[in-house]
């Protein structure tokens, strides 16, 4: 089970063991990580599960064109490391990944 480090907007870190197979969004929500809304339930419709993946180093595939387009409406600053957590599948290669949660989702 890969461990992902979430850092919330106050800088508080949580290390979460994520079940392989789901998405980073569902893993975060199940673990009670705050600041990821995912209002559409992970269907690439709302852009409220915005996260910053600092140094993905090939851990995750790049954003699809649809994800890239939806990142357009994120409320916090869009950065090169911006991703939608619902589009990141949990695999063993995510172990040690650092995910920062933005200031706001709406």
């Amino acid at each position, binding site marked *: 089970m890969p461990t992902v480090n979430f850092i919330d907007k106050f800088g508080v870190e949580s290390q979460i063991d994520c079940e392989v197979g*789901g998405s980073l969004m*569902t893993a975060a*929500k*199940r*673990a*009670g990580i*705050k600041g990821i*809304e995912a*209002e*559409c*339930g*992970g*269907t*690439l*419709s*709302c*852009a409220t599960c915005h996260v910053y993946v600092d140094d993905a180093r090939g851990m995750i595939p790049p954003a699809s*064109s*649809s994800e890239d*387009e*939806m990142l*357009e*409406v994120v409320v916090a600053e869009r950065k090169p490391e911006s991703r939608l957590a619902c589009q990141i599948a949990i695999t063993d290669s995510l172990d040690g990944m650092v995910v920062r949660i933005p200031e706001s989702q*709406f």
Partner: protein
Amino acid sequence: MMNAMRNVVIIGAGHAGFSLANALVESSFGGRIVLVNGEDHLPYQRPPLSKKYMSDGKHEDLFFQPKEFFETGNIVLVPDSIIAIERDSQTVIAKSGERISYDVLVLATGTSAIRISIPGDDGDVAYLDILNAAIGLRRRLSNVRRVAVIGAGFIGMEFAAGAIAKSISVSIVDNASRPMERSVSQGVSMHFRDELVKAGTTFYFQDSAVSIRRSNGKIESVGLKSGAEVPADLVLSGVGTKPNVELALQAGLLCSNGVVVDERLVTSDPNIFAIGDCAAFPTADGKSHRRITSVQNASDQARYLARRLLGRDKNPYRKIPWFWSDQGPNKLQIAGLPSDAHSFVTRRSDVGKKFSTFGYREGRLVSVESVNRPGDHALARKILEQGVSPDPGKVGLADFDLRSFFEMASSCRETGVQALNA
């Protein structure tokens, strides 16, 4: 009133009720929050019931937050239903007899599926509005080859697309002449109709179900007004929803197609608010009231109300509605309300599988429906929020660039240049 607000009682734990509790906790509200759930589950999301849940059956993915979230947030979850509101004593009464007092009461009671009455229905016509119904329906689907869907609205269309993916043959019956008639433009309707027809669905438009025929007790077919007979092992009804206003009515609150609220979401009692699918709020021109049943509306009204209760928002509630529907491989995203538009212009790319339809009223953009074009949808939300409007004569042209339009329109707004019909 706001200073005396120690006890907030929220009836209903769907997107509206949950989002309000969540927003209050996140804003460090120090009082007590009672969230009346009414169902034997943790608060959960309803939109996936007809979409993702039907395909994967993972009901644990539907919960907004785990149990600990409510405990640490000081949110009292009441797994009971409320049977009465006593406005004089500011108390609600649960079915169990428990009396819960409030300083502020919020009705987030949502909607229920309209029940149909057809001769031959032995109580086994399926509905898809709450988790228990979805669990039961999903279980039944494993023994079903043919489904008749009554109602070609969002629920019926989404369910049909999911059933087809399970190799179930689907027939859809509707009084209207095209799917999702009240909510989307003609071209969008036709696209989704054609997609389901290609996948093998039979539509019966301008027709209605008049009987259910059985053999040895089991559903065999649905008889239609036109005389057609639709073979089916299971009947799903998705003919629409009605707002849950019984409590409000019984408490003497003003209701008219929903619980009537003002532009600050206050009902006819200043200590009672209504948000989400059940709330009828004033239109921007103030001439009428409307109810919007969507996640966006529920969540935005919830967050607005949290800010307002905490004294952080004095403005009226105003948001551009947006909406989505997933039907098999096709994604529909809507910004604004197509039902407000009088004329439509469509931009196409590829071979018709991706397009956006721009709705205009008196020359101004009021809605954008995007089919498999999330980029257009994202820009449309920003464009409508800014109140700028691309020229309807140009928006459909192949060389029109929506992004350049938006960037130019917003920079003109910022610099105060009078805009602008790009």
